[in-house]
């Protein structure tokens, strides 16, 4: 075969396969949007589109960049890698965020401009200030315990045998797998209260408490401790997240460094603080940041358990209540903007961590 024919064959194969893949993508795109289609086939087509389609997208864009004049290639290529993410985020998060910010300067029906009225309403309202105070407490207490327990557990479980470790980790992880509906019931059977005369207790806490000879307590009505009782639910849920991510980071700490420290006579405690912790510090920041933001946004726990009554309201729950229950788009959006702004200090810590990681290289 002459080199020319070979070139043509390769070229034909290239074109043919491109068209075939394209046709497959088009077919599956039409197919998966059809709600009547067979679910099994939809899953397969979707995975094909999701994996192959995304790979093809990046490969195709990379291929296009290769065709650019060399001096532009290096400038354009990073945008090929971040482009799809930025595009999707622009539509699904940036646009709604701008939309929300605009709404926060409008009235309850988003008809007229009201300036800063919504914000002055919030900062002069006693209940709103209580929700701000509570949110601050949540943001300090929950991440502290979730990350602390998660880190301790990941470190300790790492020292166990493989099967024991897997089982122990699954137990901490399990709350994450329970849906919010399930979690609400789990904690109903913990905090449930029946006054004397309403039959026996069905909540564990009151079961124990009355078993000790006390009168039953309506835990979720005990201000200000009820806030703590609600936080325990989120700690229970989020520790699994911290544990899984931190465990993966601990596993990635090179064995050689630990062994070297051990030979130098360091005990487990010293190894943890001098070797393991510095190595996974950036992951700890990541996990803490993620949980802080999750806690900021928490609303369903409060919404389901107390509805924000009895001094338990938090900012995100107020946002949902104002926006959807009270149909006051202005107040709801203003609470959302408070959420956005409050996260700036957390981001500042991350910028620092980002720089530290890059300088270490």
């Amino acid at each position, binding site marked *: 075969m002459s080199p020319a024919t070979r070139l043509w064959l390769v070229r034909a194969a290239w074109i043919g396969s491109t068209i075939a893949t394209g046709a497959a993508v088009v077919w599956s795109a039409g197919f998966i949007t059809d709600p009547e289609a067979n679910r099994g086939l939809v899953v397969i087509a979707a995975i094909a589109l999701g994996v192959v389609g995304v790979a093809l997208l990046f490969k195709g864009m990379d291929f296009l960049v290769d065709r650019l004049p060399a001096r532009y290639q290096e400038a354009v290529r990073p945008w090929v890698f971040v482009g799809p993410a930025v595009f999707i985020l622009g539509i699904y998060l940036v646009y709604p965020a701008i939309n929300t910010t605009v709404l926060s300067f409008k009235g309850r029906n988003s008809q007229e401009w009201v300036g800063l009225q919504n914000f002055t309403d919030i900062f002069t309202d006693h209940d709103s200030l209580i929700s701000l105070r509570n949110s601050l407490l949540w943001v300090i207490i929950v991440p502290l315990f979730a990350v602390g327990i998660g880190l301790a557990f990941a470190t300790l479980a790492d020292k166990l045998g493989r099967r024991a470790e897997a089982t122990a980790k699954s137990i901490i992880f399990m709350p994450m797998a329970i849906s919010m509906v399930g979690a609400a019931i789990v904690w109903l059977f913990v905090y449930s209260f029946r006054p004397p005369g*309403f039959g026996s207790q069905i909540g564990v806490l009151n079961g124990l408490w009355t078993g000790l000879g006390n009168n039953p307590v309506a835990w979720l009505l005990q201000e200000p401790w009820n806030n703590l009782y609600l936080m325990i639910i989120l700690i229970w849920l989020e520790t699994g997240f911290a544990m899984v991510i931190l465990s993966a980071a601990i596993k990635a700490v090179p064995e050689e460094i630990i062994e070297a420290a051990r030979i130098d006579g360091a005990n487990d405690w010293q190894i943890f603080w001098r070797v393991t912790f510095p190595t996974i510090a950036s992951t700890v920041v990541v996990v803490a940041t993620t949980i802080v933001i999750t806690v900021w946004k928490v609303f369903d726990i409060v919404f389901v358990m107390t509805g924000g009554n009895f001094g338990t309201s938090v900012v995100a729950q107020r946002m949902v209540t104002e926006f959807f229950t009270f149909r006051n788009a202005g107040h709801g959006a203003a609470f959302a903007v408070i959420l956005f702004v409050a996260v700036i200090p957390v981001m500042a810590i991350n910028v620092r961590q980002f720089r530290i990681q890059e300088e270490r290289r």
Partner: protein
Amino acid sequence: MKKTRIGGFLILLIVFAMVAAACGDDTTTTEAEKTSFVLFGAPTGAEADAMNGFLQVYNEDKGTDISFVGSSSFEEQLRIRVDGGNPPAVAFVPQPGSICPFVELGALVSLEDMGFDIAQMEADHSKFWMDLGVCDDGKHYGIPWFPNFKSIIFYNKPAFDAAGYEIPATYEDLVALSAQMVSDGQTPWCFGFGSGGATGWPGTDWIEDIVVRNSGGEFYGKWFRHEVPFNDPEIVEAFDLFGQIMFGEGFVNGGPDNVAATTFQDSPLPMFGSPPSCMMLKQGSFISNFFPVGEEDQASFFPFPTIGGNTGAMGGGDTIIVFKNDPAIVDIIKDWIGAEWGCVLASPSGGTASLHGGHGVEGVERLPGHKDISVDCYETEGSKAIAAQVTEALATNNFVFDASDLMPPEVGQGSFWTGMVDWTRGTPTQQVVDAVEASWPTG
């Protein structure tokens, strides 16, 4: 080589264009002639099964394809779908107060535009209920479907009869009876205001039933429309009347302090067993679902007593709203709200009066929303008695709607609820009503 590069570039562009075109394609296939739409509402569980059962009977009879979607966070969902430009064709809302905001968004079709006979509907479903759907433009937007009934008091019949108590006719009798029970060593009342995020609502029903009797239907209308302030002396008086029971010495099982902490689902439990830990409970007809299994027979009920000779019928209800103007849909809704199909919705079998049977779900009954729905659509004597009371109230325009469902949500789903909680926990009445008044949104 340069050529290939450009060729590859073009091919890829074509592929991307094809993908884009495919995504943009309208792939939905239109059904034949069948009228097909989704009805959206709040019921879930057995109530939703009954709705599906009703629609199945209807679809089979009329050859339509209507499905029901129920959601536990209905109000929020509906708001999102309407604001997002994707409203359902037809929905039914438990809170008439949510109707007019949708009208302001231009999302609803008025009854006038759909060709409903307003005068006839006012005669059938009561003018009071029809007026709840009138918005700023003076047109009607709400179609009354089926009510629920709250002006009843459940009691433990065996214990009641054994002690020789009589059904109280007036509120004074009710208070006197309660005092009698206490002196007989009984606890008269069970209360449970706990309801997660909605804690406090069962208390608002008490105030409403007292206001409509003590101050009359006209005042009641002014009250929920905020033509009189919430801290009007009449309202304070209603709280004080309720206080005669709530704060009566030994009247409340567990004491008033525990009322907010007791869930409404738990509240009937002590009324059962012998001897019962309480004799009476005021709650909507739905509460029978929470009676202990196998002991339901012990409970019976009597109407909320009169005050100053005034009776009243207070309840909530589901109101249909229409987002899509389609004559076929209008005909279907006219069927649903009429006496013939209302009978199918009434009970599992449709009783002896239904032409099409019932919805087929045991334990679910829906009260009549049309004055001509026969009491024979119901199976039990208890339901027949309540149904008769409701149809009479509708025919005489004496049915009033739960006021907290008609007030702005900041009050009706906010400060009124929390106000009831504060009140049971010792906050003085005047302070409670002043706080609710202060929370009433302006403009």
